[in-house]
């Protein structure tokens, strides 16, 4: 957005290009916000986000601590280990009773031939976390440790991926349809007689970027509130920085995508053709979504993704969450993103300007660039 302002101002146009762009942006926003379909789909999306955060919270509560009965000093190690709810039992038979009745998940009693000199009693299967704790294990040294729960990381990756994809596709399609609507209804010629094409484009990008960012912020806020409300403070603490950077990178990343959506849509004159002409841009949205889910714990792939402008909004927050990104890395990613935006807006504005009045058959990309 910021890069379009000087561009627009440099145009020989009415003094107030910024005011014009804002008028266009305002219409984009009010038109969308008044549409029932938009309100319903946004409501459903927000509800889904809230539901998944709350469910996650309850599920982790339900799992809860493993209840263990301990006889004598057999379970000393358990006292310090997290995730165990330890209660004393008088003797082995009392412990056995507790296990059979289901009051505890397992019991640790003295004696037994195994290492550590204790026996674990359980009904049909012993809690693996308990067995693991009491076993003697070879020393494991991770060279590049991921200090996060891999399952949780997987779900967080899916979360980033889905929010990124849903918002980018929803508002990318919106801006594409808005461009074609003006072309199809021919109102664009009336508009262009008073608003320079670049200012029109800037207004559309600004309007839809504000909408997309507002939706993402709403999702982040709702997810954060949900986490705090269900007592997942720990998760929130870990995710906080990543969430903020997700919002920031998404804002700029979306400007990039919106420009491409608008420019490609300007090539066609009918709503029916929007899907096919914008499909290459759709790929740019889908690829990061798939990659982040498949490679959510691969530091090298994530490293590359976090700098490629199209995937940075999901790649960088993921690395921040996993704790494998330095503090300055998101800044570099933003810088790369900004340079890309400047280049793409230059190209996109050219395509838009050269195609917007050419109704009829699809304008060839090469012709649109050449003018």
């Amino acid at each position, binding site marked *: 957005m910021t890069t379009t302002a000087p561009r627009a101002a440099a145009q*020989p*146009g*009415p*003094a*107030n290009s910024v005011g*014009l762009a804002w*008028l*266009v942006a305002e*219409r984009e926003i009010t*038109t969308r916000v008044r549409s029932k379909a938009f309100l319903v789909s946004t409501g459903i999306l927000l509800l889904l986000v809230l539901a998944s955060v709350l469910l996650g919270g309850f599920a982790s509560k339900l799992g809860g601590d493993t209840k263990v009965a301990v006889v004598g000093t057999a379970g000393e190690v358990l006292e310090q280990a997290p995730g165990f709810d330890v209660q004393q039992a008088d003797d082995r038979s009392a412990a056995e009773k507790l296990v059979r009745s289901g009051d505890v998940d397992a019991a640790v009693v003295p004696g037994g031939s195994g290492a550590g000199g204790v026996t674990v009693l359980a009904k049909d299967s012993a809690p693996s976390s308990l067995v693991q704790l009491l076993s003697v294990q070879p020393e494991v040294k991770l060279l590049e440790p991921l200090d996060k729960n891999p399952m949780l990381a997987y779900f967080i990756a899916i979360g980033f991926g889905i929010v990124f994809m849903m918002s980018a596709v929803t508002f990318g399609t919106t801006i594409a349809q808005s461009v074609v*609507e*003006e072309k199809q*209804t*021919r*109102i*664009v*010629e*009336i*508009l*262009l*007689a*008073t*608003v*320079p094409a670049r200012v029109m484009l800037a207004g559309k990008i600004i309007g839809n970027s504000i909408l997309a960012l507002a939706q993402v912020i709403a999702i982040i806020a709702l997810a954060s509130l949900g986490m705090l409300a269900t007592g997942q403070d720990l998760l929130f603490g870990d995710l906080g920085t990543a969430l903020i950077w997700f919002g920031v990178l998404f804002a700029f990343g979306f400007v990039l995508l919106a420009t491409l959506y608008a420019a490609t849509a300007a090539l066609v004159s009918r709503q029916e053709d929007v899907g096919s002409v914008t499909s290459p841009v759709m790929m740019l949205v889908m690829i990061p979504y798939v990659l982040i889910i498949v490679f959510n714990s691969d530091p090298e792939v994530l490293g590359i993704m976090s700098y490629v402008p199209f995937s940075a909004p999901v790649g960088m927050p993921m690395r921040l969450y996993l704790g494998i990104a330095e503090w300055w890395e998101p800044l570099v990613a933003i810088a790369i993103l900004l340079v890309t935006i400047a280049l793409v807006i230059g190209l996109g504005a050219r395509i838009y300007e050269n195609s917007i*009045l050419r*109704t009829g058959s699809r304008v060839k990309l090469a012709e649109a660039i050449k003018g």
Partner: protein
Amino acid sequence: MISLHSISRSFGDRRVLRDVAFDVAAGRMTGFVGGNGAGKTTTMRIILGVLAADSGRVELDGAEITQRDRARFGYMPEERGLYPKMKVLEQLVYLARLHGMSSAAAKRSAEGLVERLGLSERANDTLESLSLGNQQRAQIAAALVHEPIALVLDEPFSGLDPIAVEVMLGVLRDFAAQGAPVLFSSHQLDIVERLCDDVVVIADGSIRAAGSREALRAEHSGSTFELELAGGTADAGWVREQPGVEVTHLDGRFARFDASADAAQAVLASAVARGPVARFAPVTPSLAQIFREVIR
């Protein structure tokens, strides 16, 4: 006054406009006529800055036209269109504001126009829910809502129902009467003939004739004359024998012929010598005739 100076424009290898130059005078209605593909729409788009010229200049009152001037023009493109799902009044206010009006002024102007065009009851309906006639009125309103200082209308009468034609005529006359330059293109030469003070004829990308309607007629009336003899048995056949005369139509005592002014006078003199003459006059060509002649 809007002036065009040697405007040229090509699309690829196709030269669409070649040194186009004419004036649209203030307070006068200028009709812009030409066949399909002659370059009317391209010329109008260049005046509005929707399209750039390859070379040449557009001036407003002697100074190179700016985007700010153009924002105060009223424009109706040949391809009509407004936002189908936007309410009529809201749409007009939006367009007025895009043309630089303040929000309050835009609202005032839109409301006044909607009332004048008889759309008050439908002002808060979406455009697509209006009848075709009312959609046309909304379209007219869209060209006028920002109180333009000049009008450029591409085929403003095409597709209009008879009532909308009258509305449009009234609007154009009002504007010209206020001293604004009005340029409109049309296929319908009879409308142009009836309405216009000035006429510009374009063919194949270049201007073939431009000037006031009377001057054009006078200019093209020079060579054709009609002679009608009096008396039931008179026969004008002898006119064919006159030197320097080419008869194009002969019917009993009536003859139409092309000739120089002197030769025509000679014809009249011999007609009077032969007997009574009912009528002798130079033929004032209709716009359609001038058009056919200049685009040849």
